[in-house]
């Protein structure tokens, strides 16, 4: 099948099979996404990040833990591309290994928070009445605390570690998703297509899972991608305060924290992980923007 | 006799993935001091024609024309600032649903006052008097009370009258009404139409009445343009509508169920490809005397 006819096959208005319809919808989304160059850039950066994390042992020029006090605080050079830190460890290698930690944090938080939010928000919006009242008041209570303070309290209670930091971020991050999901549900709940499914005898869980979730999910995904930067920064903040990854783990936030003592004389120690955080956050923001073009139901379709 | 508005070869295009989509494909007509109906189905380009005249087509949509003149003055290539001055002061528009056209958090009267002052530069007190006068002109029985009310407190028919009052306050030469009564109940519709008709007639304005409803237009307008796929396929005097010659117009008329002529099955319009490009029934439409049909 030539390239042109494959494109036509995907873009046809009259798909012949279930698979063609699904692939066609996917391809249309890809075309919209592709037209947003910044989003594409974001995607490339994130693919690189994932690749870096997977192949860290092969890419990293040195061990992230190998100390060499004779070589401490070296500026970027041919030997140490991004310089060395106070213990003489190669910053590039630490950043490469640290991408694993970053991805772990981001991935886990991005999985847990929106799921809790989706569940609570859609149930509240769909059930209405006292269920809605109770669930939303709980959400309000969580929202009333500054997120980072609440996370700090969680970590302080559970003990500082990456896992606990992730847990704390996930448990404090869901309320905005719940609000969003509830708002979406309220607009969908009374739609005619829900009424039509009800008329066919569809049960409430069925309506919720098969009809409402898919519509809420897209706006949640967009929101998560846009929030990703904030999650990375919060995780880095916890690391910076010593409540996240523990030394000698090469967590980016902790690395900045280590470097702040030398920031005037040896700027690269703090700046390199800072740039890494900045790039990844930016990439997620671009990606989120692109996903919004594709997934936002108001823009989708015609 | 000179036309108020003259449109030649108006085109509106939108870029799309499949190439350039032409929503309006070469529309030409003159508007005099008359009531001109523009009829077509959804997607015929009738609303886009109205928007293009007002300069309300948003990018990436593109409007081109050989000529688009208001009282002899070219308005197509005006800078946006100048264009905005014309909108409202010389050409006004009434949209389908007053709910979306009125600011929900502002009193009705204040909105009319603001619109009027924007275009006339009149003082506050004078504008207030004008607003009350306009509310009276659209036959609102208690203008003082309506002046003080918020949009959600008035009915659909009342809202549309308020919109008409607001649009006519600045004394425009042309009123473009895009499905002004489609959101209204039949019993209210007649009243709103009568008000609009009287005002347009008394002030010697030109009216472009965009609608999907053939019978309504036939009853209300002097002259009717029938649009299909972005082109005018037929132009005729409203009173001759039922003697329409273009198969599309005939098909539209026949597909309406009628109380006085019951049928088992309604005739279905078979769209012919040649309607998109074929000859127009009345090629003389651009020469037709504007305003001469009453």
């Amino acid at each position, binding site marked *: 099948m030539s390239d042109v006819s494959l494109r036509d096959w995907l873009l046809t208005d009259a798909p*012949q099979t279930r698979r063609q319809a699904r692939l066609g919808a996917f391809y249309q989304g890809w075309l919209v996404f592709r037209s947003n160059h910044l989003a594409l850039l974001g995607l490339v950066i994130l693919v690189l990040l994932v690749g870096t994390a997977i192949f860290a042992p092969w890419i990293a020029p040195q061990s992230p833990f190998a100390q060499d006090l004779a070589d401490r605080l070296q500026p970027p050079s041919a030997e140490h591309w991004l310089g060395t830190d106070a213990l003489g460890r190669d910053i590039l290698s630490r950043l490469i290994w640290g991408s694993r930690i970053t991805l772990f944090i981001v991935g886990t938080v991005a999985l847990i928070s929106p799921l809790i939010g989706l569940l609570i928000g859609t149930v509240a919006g769909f059930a209405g009445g006292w269920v809605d009242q109770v669930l939303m008041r709980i959400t309000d209570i969580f929202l009333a605390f500054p997120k980072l303070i609440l996370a700090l309290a969680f970590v302080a209670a559970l003990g500082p570690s990456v896992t606990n930091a992730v847990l704390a971020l996930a448990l404090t991050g869901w309320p905005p998703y719940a609000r969003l999901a509830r708002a979406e549900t309220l607009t969908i709940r009374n*739609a005619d297509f829900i009424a*039509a499914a009800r008329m*066919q005898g569809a049960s409430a869980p069925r309506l919720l899972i098969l009809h409402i979730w898919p*519509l809420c999910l897209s706006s949640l995904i967009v929101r998560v991608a846009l929030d990703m930067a904030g999650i990375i920064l919060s995780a880095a903040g916890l690391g910076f305060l010593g409540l996240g990854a523990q030394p000698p783990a090469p967590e980016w936030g902790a690395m900045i924290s280590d470097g702040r003592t030398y920031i005037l004389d040896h700027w690269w120690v703090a700046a390199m992980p800072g740039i890494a955080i900045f790039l990844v956050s930016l990439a997620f923001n671009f990606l989120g923007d692109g996903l919004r073009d594709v997934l936002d139901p108001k823009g989708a*379709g015609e | 006799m000179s036309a108020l508005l003259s449109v030649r070869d108006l085109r509106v295009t939108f870029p799309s993935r499949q190439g350039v989509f032409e929503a309006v494909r070469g529309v030409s007509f003159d508007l005099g001091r008359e009531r001109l109906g523009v009829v077509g189905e959804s997607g015929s380009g009738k609303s886009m024609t109205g928007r293009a005249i007002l300069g309300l087509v948003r990018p990436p949509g593109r409007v081109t024309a050989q000529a688009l003149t208001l009282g002899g003055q070219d308005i197509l290539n005006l800078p946006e600032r100048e264009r905005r001055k014309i909108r409202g002061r010389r050409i006004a528009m009434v949209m389908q649903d007053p709910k979306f056209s009125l600011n929900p958090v502002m009193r009705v009267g204040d909105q009319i006052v603001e619109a009027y002052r924007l275009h006339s530069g009149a003082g506050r007190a004078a504008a207030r008097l004008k607003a009350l006068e306009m509310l009276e002109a659209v036959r609102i029985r208690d203008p003082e009370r309506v002046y003080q009310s918020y949009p959600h407190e008035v009915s659909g028919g009342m809202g549309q009258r308020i919109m008409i009052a607001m649009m006519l306050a600045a004394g425009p030469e042309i009123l473009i009404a895009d499905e002004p009564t489609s959101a209204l109940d039949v019993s209210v519709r007649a009243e709103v139409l009568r008000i609009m008709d009287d005002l347009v007639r008394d002030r010697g304005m030109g009216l472009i009445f965009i609608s999907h409803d053939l019978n309504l237009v036939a*009853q209300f307008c002097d002259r009717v343009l029938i649009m299909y796929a972005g082109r005018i396929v037929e132009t005729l005097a409203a009173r001759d509508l039922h003697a329409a010659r273009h198969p599309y117009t005939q098909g539209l008329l026949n597909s309406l169920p009628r*109380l006085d002529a019951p049928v088992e*099955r309604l005739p279905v319009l078979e769209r012919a490809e040649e309607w998109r490009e074929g000859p127009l029934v009345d090629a003389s439409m651009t020469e037709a005397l504007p305003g001469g049909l009453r």
Partner: protein
Amino acid sequence: MSAPILSVADLRVWFGHPPDRVDAVRGVDLGVQRGESFGLVGESGSGKSTVLRAIAGLAPDWSGRVAVAGETLSGARRSPAFHRRVQMVFQDPYASLHPRHTVDRVLAETLTLQGMDDIDRRIVRLLDDVGLGRGFRFRYPHQLSGGQRQRVAIARALAGEPELLLLDEPTSALDVSVQAEILNLLTDLRADRGLTYLMVSHDLAVIGHLCQRLAVMQAGEIVDRLEVADLRAGRAQNAYTRHLIAASQYQRA
């Protein structure tokens, strides 16, 4: 005459709680015979659509006695038997199809819910019955025109082989030429399947075309009942009905 398939006695529907309670329907009595097509005419706010929604179980607060084929209804819950027997077609074809579900998925889910077997074959037949053909099977709603969407909605309503269709202004969002096609489809389907229609519309001509009897609603009450033959012959007595007829005919002054 045989027992009516639908009987409604003293139906009252309200929204909200005092002091904001709005009484949308205030004591409506209706009887629809098996096989006939009954029209309910009124302007917006007359409560005509609310009557349908209350019967369908989509309006939670109502009182009165509603029975479908002998089964008395209560509250907003409806039995599986009701769902098989009664289906509804909504006004806005753009809002009545799930934007992310293909035609195939809509019909397959409906057939599954209705406990039908041989789903593949039935989908093809349903699409043929509503004049769409199998080429439309895997399209998403945004790949369909308004009239095509309404055909899908009708196919969905027919999937469980119902006896009574509630039609809530099924053509008012469509162009007149498409309206004619859908009205013809509804005429044919009723003849082929012996369906009963209860149709709501603001358009007297549409009701006159499709129905044999009609009731006129105003402010939540039925103010007039007449045969369509009387309507056509101009024998309407009620002042409001005459007003509606006059307003819908656009006699050129």
